[in-house]
C-alpha cells in the first residue's frame, strides 16, 4: 500500500472482483488512438493471415461476413485505467480464421489500416480468446472504435485489440508493435497490471 492521501476517501464502492488493479469502471465508451481515424471502404477492405513469406489466407468483406459468426460478451480494460463491463460484439473467432493454417510460429503481429501494429504470443489469439469483430452493441462498428473491423483480445489491455485491423502476421520471433516500442508493456495483462515496460 502506498502513502495515505490526506482526506481522500474515494467514491462509495463495493469491492469488485471483476475490476483489475488500478482500474475504474466507466459506462460510456472512451476512444483512444494515436493518430487520425482511417476510413476503409468495404469494397477495398481485406483481411489476411500471412507469414514473412507472404499471405496464407485472404478474405474480402463478403467472404469474411460469410464465415461462422460468434457474439462474445466481454469486459474491456484500457491501460488508461478505465474498464467497461459486459460489452457485446459480433465477429469471427481467430480459431476459425486460423483453422487451416499450419505454422510453427509462436508470435503474432496484428497490423492495421493506418499503420498501427501490436504484438502478442500466438497462443493468446487461439482457443476462444480472440475475435475479429465488426459489430458493437448490435450496430456496425464505427470507425473511431475501429470499424469496419477490429481485433478483440479482451484478456489483455485494450491496445492489443488493434482497431482497423488489416491482417495478422505469424512470426518466429517476437516483434514489438507501436505502443510496445513506446514504453508500454510487451504483454499487457491487466490482472498483473502490466502497463509499462518493466511492470
Amino acid at each position, binding site marked *: 500500500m*502506498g502513502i495515505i*492521501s490526506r482526506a481522500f476517501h474515494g*467514491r462509495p464502492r463495493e469491492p469488485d472482483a471483476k475490476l483489475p488493479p488500478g482500474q475504474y469502471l466507466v459506462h460510456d465508451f*472512451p476512444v483512444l488512438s494515436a493518430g487520425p481515424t482511417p476510413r476503409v471502404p468495404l469494397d477495398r477492405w481485406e483481411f489476411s493471415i500471412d507469414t514473412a513469406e507472404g499471405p496464407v489466407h485472404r478474405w474480402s468483406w463478403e467472404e469474411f461476413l460469410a464465415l461462422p459468426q460468434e457474439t462474445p460478451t466481454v469486459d474491456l480494460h484500457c491501460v488508461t485505467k478505465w474498464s467497461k463491463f459486459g460489452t457485446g460484439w459480433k465477429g469471427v473467432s481467430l480459431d476459425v480464421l486460423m483453422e487451416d493454417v499450419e505454422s510453427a510460429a509462436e508470435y503474432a503481429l496484428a497490423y492495421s489500416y493506418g499503420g498501427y501494429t501490436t504484438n502478442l504470443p500466438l497462443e493468446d489469439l487461439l482457443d476462444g480468446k480472440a475475435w475479429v469483430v465488426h459489430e458493437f452493441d448490435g450496430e456496425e462498428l464505427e470507425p473511431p472504435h475501429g470499424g469496419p473491423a477490429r481485433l478483440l483480445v479482451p484478456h489483455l489491455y485494450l491496445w492489443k485489440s488493434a482497431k482497423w485491423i488489416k491482417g495478422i502476421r505469424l512470426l518466429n520471433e517476437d516483434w514489438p508493435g507501436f505502443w510496445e516500442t513506446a514504453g508500454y508493456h510487451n504483454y499487457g495483462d491487466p490482472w498483473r497490471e502490466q502497463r509499462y515496460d518493466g511492470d
Partner: protein
Amino acid sequence: MIKRLAWRVATLESARQETPTAKTLVLDVPGWPGHLPGQHVDVRLTAPDGYSTQRSYSIANASAGDRLELTVQTVDDGEVSPYLTDVLEPGDQIELRGPVGGWFVWRPHSSPPVLLIGGGSGIVPLMAMVRSRGKADTPFRLLYSLRDPGQLFYADELEKVKAGVEVAYLYTRIAPPDAGRAAGRLQTADLIAYGWPPETGPDVFVCGPTGFVESAADLLTALGHDPAKIRTERFGPTGG
C-alpha cells in the same frame, strides 16, 4: 532488464488557479528523471482503508529538475480531479509515476515546423511543448480552441509568448469583440488561416476531447496533411 517505473512521492509546493475550474499543481518530486514535452504521469491516491485509484494527467511544464507541474481540470462528478483541485494543500503528498508515453512527444531537436491544435484542457501537453521550445529555431503555430475567454489556461504566459510561436484563439461559444473570428468550431478555414500548409511538412499534435480530435484530424487529412505526421491524444468524456 528494464526497471519498473517506480511510484514516487510528490509534495504539493503551490497551486495556481488557471480558471474557476482548473488548477496547476506545482509538485516537488525528489529524484524525478526528467520528461519530454507531451508525456504524462499516473497519479495514485490511497484512502485510509487501503482503497486506491489512479488517473493519468499530462505534464504542463518543461523538464526542470525535481519540479513537475500538472494542470488539472475539475470533472464535476470525478473521483480524483476534485480532490486534486479542491482538497490538496501545500505540503500534502500524493504518489505518481512516470514519465509515460513515447509517441505524443515533441523532441526539441527535431526541425520541421510544429502545428499544435488543442481543444479545452487539451492545451496542457501542448503548453509543455511551447515551454520546452526555448531558443530553438523550430517555428510553432498553436491553434487553441476554447469555449469562451473564461476557459483560457496560461493567459498571461501565452500573451507574452516569444517570437517564433504564433497563437490563434478559436472561441467556440463566446468570442471577445476583438477576436477577429466569429465564435464557432474549428474549421478548415482556421487550419488554412492559422496553421501550416501541408507542403511544409509540419509535425502536428492534436489534443482534446474525442469529438474535437476526431474532427481536427479528419480536416487535416482532408487538407492533405500526411496522416503519419499527425499525432493525437484524446481525453474521453470520462476520467476525472
